[in-house]
Each structure stands twice: as structure tokens, then as C-alpha cells.
């Protein structure tokens, strides 16, 4: 399957002075795969993306796009690449049509096909009605869409989007996510974000970067598994004595929370939920809420980074 990996990054590093922004990062993205790039602010997401797109020269390492080395043959590599930076690079004095036409020409689309490419990109990004308006007068959401249209206008093999849904309203976000999924059909997509549902809705695989290093590379299922914890939150109208709850097989500890809720800790993958419900019905505790607790993305970050530290210390 080697020929089908569209992006290949080997031992990529980037220094700013003494500060190591990206440290020995390696990964691959296959054709048809959507990779979510996660990480806290300043973790090196944008730096990595800038290097992938040739906006920044790496201090060390190799980048190949569709088998073409980015540093040795940048022009050819960039031809297979569409990039939406954190701030969409728009010429505000142009109209949407003019701007997209320029982008199409810039990406070497033949003169006869420019109009078709522009029309197609506009349709995919829902811009058909604003073609003649000045970019400067568009709302933030529309400007973001123009930025995405610019990145996909030459149907590149690799699309790289830096926080594509920032500033969009919920309906637009859903449309853009659908668009990203569509793109994932035949292209490779890398997108950075810190919104978890976005990753779950669009990505096949997730990479978490922290302090310039890849700390996790996993499938979406793997990430979801990591986010499950070993506790249930229950709310009972007529709660029994804690000892009775403690007696349920699997429950390790009981903790009282606000508003009459209780947290039951248990062994991972051995949820006492079923037993609890049976007991609650049998003894008329009045169970009205039962929620398996989930970690937020931040908690996963913290977990991963702290376990790393522990391993280092050990």
C-alpha cells in the first residue's frame, strides 16, 4: 500500500532559535483518509502545517506529497496541495469570482477550464449566490468558505485545513463537515482543530501533538475508548445508604455529588450499570438518571501528557 500514502512525513523538526517547536514528528496519511490534528495552543500544529505546505522550511526531516519531495521539487509538490491557513488568505478588494479565478490560474488550471473549476468550487462551498460580491463585504462565515474554495479549486490530492470551522454558524459547520467528508473520498485531508465533536464527525484518524511531539496517533474508535472512564453518575429520588450501593458487584467507591447525585467508580470495562438498575427497580430507589462519565478532550490531553511524564520519570 506504499504507493497510496499521499503524505509522508519523516523525522520533521523545526526550531525557532533555541525553541524546538516541532520535534522529530513522523506520520503518513493514506489516500481517502481524513486526519485530525489536535493539540493545545502553541503545540506545533500550525507550524507542522506550514511546513507541510512549503510556507516554512523545516530544520530537519523530509516531507513527500504524493511521492514528490517538498524540498527538492517544491513546485510539483505544491501543485498537489491545497492549503487553508488559520486566517484565510483573501484579497478583500476582489470579488469572489475574481479571487477564485486568480487562484485557479495560480494553480495552473488551463485557461479553458478556469470557469468550470471556479463554478464547481463555488457550488461545493455554497458560494454560488455571492460570486459577484466583494470579499470584504462578506460575513466571516462566507469568507471562511471562500478560503476553503480556494484550497480545493484545483482538486488537489492533499487538502490541508487549519481550523476550518472557526467563526461559522452551526448550520455552516455541518455543511463544511460534510464537505470535508466528501473530500476525504478521493483526497487526503488533514485538519487541525480543538473541537472534539468535529474530530468525531469528520476524521478517520487522530493525532495529538503536544510541545512539538506526537503523543498519540490513533483511530477515532481508539480515541473514544480512551475517553471512557471508569465511573457512572447516578441520580436517585430515594437514595439508599452508601453501603448498599457499595455492595453492588463491581462498585469500588461511592462519592456524593451536588443535587443528590452520586458517582460510582468501577473497574474499567466492567460497568455495574445493569446490576445497579436491577437493584434500583427491585428496591424502589427511584432512579432517574444514569450517565457513564466521559473525559473531555482536555482531560485526554492531560491524561496523555501526564502519563508521558510519569513514564519519563520512571
Amino acid at each position, binding site marked *: 500500500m506504499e504507493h497510496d500514502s499521499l503524505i509522508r512525513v519523516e523525522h520533521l523538526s523545526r526550531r*525557532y532559535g533555541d525553541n524546538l517547536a516541532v520535534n522529530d514528528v513522523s506520520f503518513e496519511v493514506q489516500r481517502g483518509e481524513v486526519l485530525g490534528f489536535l493539540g493545545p495552543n502553541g503545540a506545533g500544529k500550525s507550524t507542522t502545517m*506550514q511546513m507541510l*505546505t*512549503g*510556507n*516554512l*522550511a523545516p530544520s530537519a526531516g523530509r516531507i513527500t506529497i504524493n511521492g514528490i519531495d517538498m524540498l527538492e521539487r*517544491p*513546485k*510539483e509538490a*505544491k*501543485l498537489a*496541495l*491545497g*492549503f487553508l*491557513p488559520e*486566517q484565510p*488568505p*483573501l*484579497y*478583500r*478588494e*476582489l470579488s469572489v469570482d*475574481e479571487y477564485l479565478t*486568480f*487562484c485557479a*490560474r*495560480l*494553480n*495552473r488550471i488551463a485557461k479553458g477550464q478556469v470557469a468550470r473549476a471556479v463554478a464547481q468550487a463555488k457550488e461545493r462551498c455554497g458560494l454560488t449566490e455571492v460570486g459577484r460580491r466583494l470579499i470584504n463585504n462578506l460575513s466571516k462565515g462566507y469568507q471562511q468558505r471562500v478560503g476553503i474554495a*480556494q484550497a480545493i479549486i484545483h482538486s488537489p490530492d492533499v487538502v490541508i485545513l487549519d481550523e476550518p470551522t472557526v467563526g461559522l454558524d452551526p448550520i455552516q459547520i455541518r455543511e463544511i463537515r460534510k464537505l470535508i467528508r466528501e473530500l476525504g473520498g478521493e483526497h487526503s485531508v488533514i485538519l487541525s482543530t480543538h473541537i472534539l465533536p468535529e474530530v468525531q464527525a469528520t476524521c478517520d484518524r487522530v493525532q495529538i501533538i503536544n510541545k512539538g511531539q506526537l503523543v498519540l496517533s490513533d483511530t477515532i474508535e481508539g480515541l473514544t475508548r480512551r475517553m471512557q472512564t471508569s465511573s457512572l453518575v447516578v441520580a436517585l429520588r430515594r437514595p439508599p445508604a452508601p453501603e448498599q450501593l457499595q455492595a453492588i458487584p463491581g462498585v469500588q467507591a461511592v462519592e456524593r455529588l451536588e443535587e443528590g447525585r452520586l458517582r460510582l467508580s468501577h473497574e474499567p470495562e466492567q460497568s455495574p450499570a445493569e446490576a445497579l438498575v436491577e437493584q434500583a427497580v427491585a428496591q424502589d430507589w427511584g432512579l432517574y438518571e444514569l450517565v457513564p462519565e466521559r473525559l473531555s478532550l482536555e482531560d485526554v490531553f492531560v491524561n496523555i501528557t501526564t502519563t508521558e511524564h510519569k513514564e519519563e520519570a520512571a
Partner: protein
Amino acid sequence: MMIATLAARELRSLFLSPLAWSILAVVQFILAWLFLGQLDVYIAFQSRIAMMENPPGATEVIVAPLFSSATIILLLVIPLLTMRLVSEERRSRTLPLLFSAPVSMSEIVLGKYLGLLGFLAIMLGLITLMPLSLLSIGTLDFGLLASNLLGLMLMLGAFAAAGLFMSTLTAQPTVAAISTFGLLLLLWIIELTGKNGAEAGNVLAYLSLQRHYEALLRGLFNSSDILYYLLFIAAFLVLGIRRLDADRLQH
């Protein structure tokens, strides 16, 4: 081909801002004023000029001073046009669009330069219309006019190249404008220090932009003067390309 695309975009954006139009209007107005003044002088002294043994023609009396003043006015104006070339793109973060497109740094710089040159050619065309209007009442020395035009074009090309380089240095258009203005003015007056006759002074005088222009204004076509301008332009363009390339290397 990429260069043409970039140049066309640059020219288009220039004309979409009121800056280009107002500059064209102001320059044209001031030069028309000077042109009419020069025309008055010629008419007033016409009888005396006619009695001279080797009388200067209308082109010499009217056109050469006009072009000479044009450079000084444009020295003030060109930094305003060049300032936004790169620094504006840097400030509004549009450079990644060009950097991640399949174009080289040289194409980006040349595209921008040629786009601006296109604008300057339009301005030059408008200025030339004034001497050409004299054709309705007499004849012109076309050789002298051509050498004046060439000189002004080269001079503007040199101004633009220096301005483009200054614009790659900063993200603040005003800083680019002021430093371009300073650099051009320095290269203009550097000749003054050379008048003392010292050896170093001569070298400095040779570097002066003005010195090479004066010959062309008199109609002397010297290939070393032309070469001076071409080298000047090439040097600043290469510096500009290197500077943009450095964006990728270090921040």
C-alpha cells in the same frame, strides 16, 4: 505565464484602490502645470531664441525640464505605490496563498514588479501625451523625446525595484514607504558629496541615480548609463527574492 497572472492581479488590485487613481490625477495635474509654465517661457523667449546661432528646439526647452521635474515628483510618489506590494500581503496574511501555490519566489517578485511597471507605463503614457500635444502646432525632436522617455522609464524602474525590496522587509506599509523614500533620496543626493573632487566622492557620485539620468535628458545615449539602471534593478529584485525566501527559513 505565472508571472503574467501575478502581474495582472497586482495591476488590477492597484486600480481597485483609490490610491492609484488619485496618484495618476495629482501627478498629471502638477506636471501639466509645469508643462504649461515651460510652454509660456518658450513663447516669451521665442523671438530671442530664434536669433541665436544654434537655437535650442522646443523639445529641449519644454520637454527636458518637464521630464526632469517628473523624476523628482515621482520620487515622492513611487514609495506610496511600492509600499503595499509585499508588506500589505504580509499584514493581511495573504502571502501563504502565494507560498503554497506552485510558483517560485522569483515568479512572485517578478510578477509584482511587472504589475507595478505596467502601472508606471500607463502613467508615463499620460505624461508623454503632453509633449505630443505640441505636434498640433509644430514638430518635435523625436530622438530626444525617446531618450528622455527611456531615461524616465529606467529611473522609475529603479525606484520601483528599490521600493519593492523595502516592502519585503516589513509588515508595515508606512515604514516601507518612508524607508524607500529615504533610500531614494539618499541615492539622489549622494552626488553632492562627490562634488568635492575626492576619490571616494567620485565613486559615490557614480552611484547616484541622477547623474546617469542627466545624460539621457540631454539626449546622450550611453550604454553604461543603461547598464547602471539595469544592474540597479536586478540587484534590488534579487535582494527582494532572497528576503522573501528568508521568510520560509526563519522568523
